[in-house]
C-alpha cells in the first residue's frame, strides 16, 4: 500500500512537471540585445555602413611591425563592394580600384579581396631586409573589426593582431601622399649634410643622446644610448608625412610620448616638442658621437693593411656618397676595360713604410703614395702627410681621392660590428672635416 502511494505521488509530480516544462524561456532577461546571429549581422551592417559613411574615405597609417618596420600610409574610399585605394609604398601614389568584402570569421572583418596597393605589403617575394625573406613587409589585408572610438574605426590585423586605426580622410590627404614621398630623402639623410646623425631628447632638465641609423628600405631606425653603461634604446618605425615623420613606438621623454616630428629644411633636423620644455630631435653631427680608440697602435705598430676592395665593398652602406662619387669620377678617366681593384692603406711596411696603394684591373700598374703617419690622441684621429709617389708626377686622376685621405684634420678609424661577404673585420676611415668615408677590410 505504501509503495503504491509513493508511485501515485510520483506520477502526479511527473505530470505536473510536464505541464510546466514548456514555459516561455524568452522571459529570462538576456544580457545581449539579440541572438548571436542577429548581433553579428548587425555588426556586419554597422561596419559596412561606417566604411561608406565617410565622404572622402579613410586614412590609415599601417605599422605592420614596429619592432622592425615603419609605417605605410593608405587611403581608402569604399562604395558597395568596390574600394579606391592609394598608398605611399612607392612613388606611384595614384588611386586604384579593386574589391572588398566584409566576412564573418571569429568576428566581423574587412578583407581586400582583389589586388590593390595594400597587397604590396604582403608579397613574400618583395622584402626589405634579408631576415624577412618569404615574409615581405609582414603586411595583412584582413582587418578584424573591434569597434569605433572618437569617429575612428579600430581594427586588428588577422595574422598578428596589430592595431590599425582608420581615421576620416580629408581632401588634402589624397594629395598629401605624393608630398610625403618628397620627405623620403630628407629622412634617409642628405649627402650634403654631415655623416653622423643622432637622436637627442630633452626632458626639460637633462639632454640624452642616442646614435641614429636609418634603413630606408624597411623605414626603420635603430637608436642606442651613447652613454656608457646605458642600454636604453629608442628604435623607431617611421612613416612619412608632407611636413615630417610619424614614429612608432613613440619616443618616450619623461612621462610624455612624442610621435610627430617636423622637418626643418634649414638644418635637416626633425623636431618634436612636448610640454614643459620636453623635446626630441633627430639631428646631424660633424663628429662621430662616440670617438673610438681604434686608432691606437696603428701608426707605430706592426705591418697593417686596410683595403677597400672594389669588387666586394663597392656597395657597402658605410661608403659615403662623396667617396663613391670620387671613385666613380676617377674610374671615368680610365680605359673602359679598367677599374679600381683596391685602395689599400698599408702601415709600417718593413720596406716602404706607410703608404697608400692604388691598384687596378685591366692591366694598369699599381701606384703607391708614400706617407708619414701620426697619431692625434687629442682628436682621436690618424693624420697622414705626403712623402712622395712611386712615379715622378703625381697622377692627376687620383688627386681628389688622395686629398681626402690626406685630410689635414685627420681620419677617424672605426672598427665596425658588421662584416661584408667575408669574415674579415670591417674598418671605416672617415675624414674629420668632410663627408668622405671609406669602408675597408682588415687584411
Amino acid at each position, binding site marked *: 500500500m505504501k509503495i503504491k502511494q509513493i508511485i501515485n505521488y510520483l506520477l502526479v509530480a511527473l*505530470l505536473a512537471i510536464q505541464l510546466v516544462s*514548456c514555459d516561455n524561456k524568452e522571459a529570462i532577461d538576456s544580457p545581449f540585445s539579440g541572438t548571436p546571429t542577429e548581433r553579428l549581422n548587425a555588426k556586419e551592417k554597422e561596419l559596412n555602413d561606417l566604411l561608406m559613411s565617410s565622404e572622402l574615405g579613410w586614412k590609415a597609417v599601417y605599422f605592420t611591425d614596429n619592432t622592425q618596420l615603419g609605417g605605410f600610409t593608405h587611403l581608402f574610399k569604399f562604395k558597395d563592394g568596390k574600394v579606391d585605394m592609394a598608398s605611399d609604398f612607392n612613388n606611384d601614389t595614384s588611386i586604384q580600384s579593386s574589391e572588398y568584402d566584409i*566576412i564573418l570569421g571569429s568576428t566581423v572583418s574587412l578583407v581586400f*579581396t582583389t*589586388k590593390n596597393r595594400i597587397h604590396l605589403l604582403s*608579397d*613574400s617575394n618583395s622584402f626589405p631586409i634579408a631576415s624577412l625573406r618569404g615574409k615581405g613587409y609582414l603586411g595583412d589585408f584582413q582587418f578584424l573589426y573591434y569597434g569605433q572610438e572618437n569617429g575612428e574605426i579600430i581594427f586588428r590585423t588577422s595574422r598578428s593582431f596589430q592595431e590599425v586605426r582608420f581615421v576620416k580622410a580629408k581632401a588634402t590627404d589624397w594629395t598629401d601622399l605624393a608630398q610625403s614621398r618628397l620627405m623620403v630623402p630628407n629622412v634617409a639623410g642628405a649627402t650634403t649634410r654631415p655623416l653622423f646623425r643622432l637622436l637627442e631628447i630633452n626632458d626639460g632638465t637633462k639632454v640624452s643622446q642616442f646614435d641614429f641609423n636609418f634603413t630606408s628600405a624597411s623605414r626603420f631606425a635603430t637608436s642606442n644610448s651613447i652613454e656608457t653603461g646605458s642600454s636604453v634604446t629608442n628604435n623607431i618605425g617611421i612613416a612619412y608625412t608632407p611636413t615630417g615623420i610619424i614614429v612608432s613606438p613613440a619616443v618616450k621623454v619623461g612621462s610624455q610620448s612624442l610621435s610627430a616630428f617636423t622637418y626643418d629644411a634649414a638644418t635637416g633636423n626633425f623636431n618634436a616638442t612636448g610640454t614643459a620644455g620636453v623635446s626630441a630631435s633627430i639631428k646631424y653631427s660633424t663628429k662621430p658621437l662616440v670617438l673610438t680608440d681604434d686608432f691606437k697602435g696603428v701608426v707605430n705598430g706592426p705591418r697593417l693593411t686596410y683595403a677597400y676592395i672594389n669588387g666586394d665593398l663597392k656597395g657597402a652602406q658605410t661608403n659615403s656618397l662623396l667617396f663613391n662619387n670620387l671613385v666613380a669620377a676617377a674610374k671615368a678617366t680610365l680605359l673602359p676595360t679598367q677599374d679600381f681593384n683596391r685602395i689599400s692603406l698599408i702601415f709600417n711596411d718593413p720596406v716602404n713604410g706607410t703608404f697608400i696603394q692604388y691598384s687596378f684591373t685591366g692591366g694598369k700598374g699599381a701606384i703607391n703614395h708614400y706617407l708619414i703617419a701620426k697619431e692625434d690622441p687629442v682628436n682621436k684621429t690618424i693624420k697622414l702627410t705626403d712623402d712622395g709617389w712611386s712615379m715622378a708626377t703625381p697622377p692627376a686622376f687620383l688627386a681628389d681621392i688622395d686629398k681626402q685621405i690626406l685630410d689635414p684634420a685627420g681620419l677617424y678609424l672605426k672598427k665596425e660590428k658588421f662584416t661584408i661577404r667575408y669574415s674579415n673585420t670591417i674598418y671605416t676611415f672617415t675624414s674629420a672635416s668632410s663627408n668622405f668615408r671609406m669602408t675597408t677590410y682588415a687584411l
Partner: protein
Amino acid sequence: MKILNKYKKLALLSAVVLLGSCTGDEPLKESQLDLTVKPKTELDNWIDTNYLLPYNINVQYKWNPNAVDNNRFLYPPIQSKVQPVLEIVQKIWLKSYADVAGPNFVKNIAPREFVLVGGVNLNTTGTITLGLAEGGKRITFFETDNVDKRNRSNIKRFLRTIQHEYIHILNQTKPFDEKSMATITPTGYSSAWYNTTDAVALEEGFLTAYAKSNINEDFAETAATILVNSKAEYASILGTVVSPVALASIKSKEAIVVKYYKDAFNIDLYKLRDAAENNTNDVINN
C-alpha cells in the same frame, strides 16, 4: 487489475500531455543569415560557362582567407589577369586532354577547385612553391600576375604546375608502379632536395631537383617535364646528360610513366605531349 488500469490511463494522459505540450512554438522563419547571391561580374559568368558548368571546377580568384595558408605572405591576383590565365589553362591543359583522351576524361577525373594567388610563394629557405594540390580536390596556382602568354618559357613554367598537380590526382585515382620506380634511383631521394641544382640532379638520373624529394614527385616531375616540353626540347634536355647511368635511369622512369598512362587510362603520352605542344604554340602565336 484496477490499479493496472489506473496506471494505463495515467500513462495515456501523460503521453497526450507530452505530445501536445510544445505545439505552441511559432513556425520557422527565414534564415537570419544574408543568403543573397552577389551580382555576378562578366568574369564570374565567363568562369561559370567555361569551368563551373562543363567541368564542375570552381575558381576562387577573390581572396578567401580559409583557402590559403595564413602563415604565408600571399595576395589575390590582379583581376584583369584572371581570365587570360584561365584561358591558357583551358587551352593547353583541358583541351589537350580532351583532344587525346576524349571530352569526358577531365570531367570525370578533375580537381574540384582552382585557387588563384597573384604573388610568388617564396619559402624562407629561398625555394619557390609554384603550385599545391590538396587531397586531389583543390589546386592552388601561384604567380598568376606574372603569366605572360607571349613568353614560351614563362608559360611552360606556369603550365608545369597544373600538369604536375594533375598527375598527382591521376595517381590518386589509379596508382602507378611504385615498386619499379623505387628501384631505379633508390639512393637519390632527399628531403633537402633544394640543395641540389637541376643540372646536378640531371646527372643523378632526375629530370629536376624537385624530383629528388620522393618517388611520387619523381613520377610527377618526369611526366610533367615530358608534357611541358616539345619532343625536340625534351630530347635536348636528355642530350645534355653526360652520365650513361643517369640517362638510362631517366629513360626507365619515362618508360614507367608512358606505360602508366597507357595501362591505366589508355592514353598515348607522346600524343598528349604533341597536343599540348600544338596548343601551346596556338596560345603564344594568337
